[in-house]
């Protein structure tokens, strides 16, 4: 029963892991693995010395830190707010509606973003002009400095609702007696959020935070690729290129397989180290841990 799937995992997950060895070779598809010469750490050195390296690292870290800083607490706050809603119909409608963006593909989301931020008749420009926040329409997506902000906002927009499900469920599991006791002691509902709700769901928060830290070098991929794919958006690349998009660019588009694999391997190793560090800290603090 387990054999077919186990074989599948070994072929499609473990062979590529062994395949990272091509990072230490001068590989191309036609000479094959064995015939390609070993080159040691040349590709890593080339990556570290490349003019784009520091730019890519800055973008990767900045984008993912922003995503963690804003995208991580957002669903928690939404869940806390939804928990205060007494009108069940209203609550259900808000939940259903905020889940919608999760089910929309990044391709369509990028299309929606282009449409919303368009310089001609884009609703964002229209509204901001109406309130005199700006004089004339801005082509938001072609200003490199705005790219991080747009990317992070769209990410929050897409996942805030769906991300809140887990926290809603954790909140639902809290013993109602605790709230009664707190109310008896004179805590109003605002205080109860901080004294009871948040401490009660903190194990769940910590687990997701650990996972988030392990993901810190996954600044995003599909979203960045799609929002920069539009021809006119090439100019934002100095702020948009992250390790993953670089690997894709170098490996798939330029067919520099070994070089791209080296860059990707560098990312994986740092990610795993970060995951272990985050988990170690969480365990030492005596809260929850992944393993």
């Amino acid at each position: 029963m387990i054999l077919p799937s186990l074989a599948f995992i070994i072929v499609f997950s473990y062979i590529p892991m062994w395949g990272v060895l091509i990072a230490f070779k001068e590989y191309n598809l036609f000479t094959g693995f064995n015939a390609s010469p070993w080159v040691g750490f040349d590709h890593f050195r080339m990556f570290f010395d490349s003019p784009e390296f520091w730019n890519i690292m800055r973008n990767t870290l900045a984008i993912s830190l922003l995503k963690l800083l804003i995208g991580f607490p957002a669903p928690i706050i939404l869940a806390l707010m939804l928990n205060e809603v007494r009108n069940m119909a209203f609550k259900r409608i808000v939940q259903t509606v905020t889940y919608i963006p999760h089910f929309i593909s990044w391709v369509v989301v990028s299309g929606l973003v282009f449409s919303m931020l368009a310089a001609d008749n884009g609703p964002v420009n229209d509204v901001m002009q109406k309130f005199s926040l700006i004089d004339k329409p801005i082509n938001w997506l072609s200003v490199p400095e705005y790219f991080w902000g747009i990317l992070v906002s769209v990410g929050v927009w897409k996942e805030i609702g769906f991300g809140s499900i887990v926290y809603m469920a954790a909140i639902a599991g809290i013993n109602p007696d605790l709230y009664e006791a707190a109310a008896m002691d004179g805590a109003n509902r605002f205080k109860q959020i901080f004294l009871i709700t948040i401490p009660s769901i903190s194990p769940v928060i910590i687990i997701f935070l650990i996972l988030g830290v392990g993901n810190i070098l996954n600044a995003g991929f599909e979203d960045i690729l799609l929002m920069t794919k539009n021809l006119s958006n090439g100019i934002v690349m100095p702020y948009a290129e992250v390790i993953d998009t670089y690997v894709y660019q170098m490996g798939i588009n330029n067919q520099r397989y070994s070089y791209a694999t080296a860059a990707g391997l560098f990312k994986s190793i740092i990610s795993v180290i970060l995951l272990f560090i985050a988990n170690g800290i969480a365990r030492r603090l005596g809260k929850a841990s992944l393993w």
Partner: protein
Amino acid sequence: MKLNFSDKVMQAIIYFILVVLAFLAFYPFWNSLVLSFNVGSDASLGGVTFWPRAFTLENYEIVFKEKRIFNAYLITIARTLIGTLVSMFFTALFAYGLSKKGIVFKKGYMIICIVTMYFSGGLIPYFVLVYNLHLYNTFTFLIVHGLVNVYNMIIFRTFFQELPDGLEESARIDGCSNFGVFFRIVLPISGPVVATLSLFTAVGLWNDWFTPAVFISNQNLIPLQTLLVQIVNAGQTATLIENLNSYAQSTVEDSSTVKALQMATMMVATLPILLIYPFLQKYFVKGALVGSLKE
């Protein structure tokens, strides 16, 4: 529970914020839906927001008559149906096997699986593997890719482990084999979990544009989302018109129509999922929970 004044203020603020959030979540989609039903040249004058001003079905007519879009739609549907079915089958079977007590080396198998969640060879070695297996540019690859999902496997396994042992024992006494128990007893009572994970898998397959973009170069094999990337990103009218067949070419005169067509195609690619998911909502809320809390 009685609310005092400060509680009431907080309630009002929260309701307000939630209404704004719900509006923000919904409006971009709604506006695009409206634009897809509006005449393109009229929409380009601006001011079309909540309701079509010059209603038309022509955009959809063009989209459905466009052979490439139609073909890509078929590929998407085929991939989603077959892919979900096959993936569910192998993943569930795998999970059932691993949920049994007394399997030799069970912990080892689990570790093998879990490692893949945190560490992978990355895109390029995977690409090389696929190329060398001669799966590049095949429909088979679109099914095989991500066939066994470890995350789903763990959710299935958690669910299977909680089934009462007696159920299977009695089936076995009645002469059921391992596979018989799996198909006749275990799968039928796992309805909600199967529904949830099928939905997630199907949505993932339906929305996936990247895998085909990298591993499929044959334009007749690319699914709708991948084709959509080309359509949404067609900055200039010329690029899009080049991609359309003769019927559409004769109808599309200007860039405003192109925008309406982009919207219509986006809606065609999104609506099937949005129409299905609310019905499965009560299941997936539970399903997402099982996976995340019991990992």
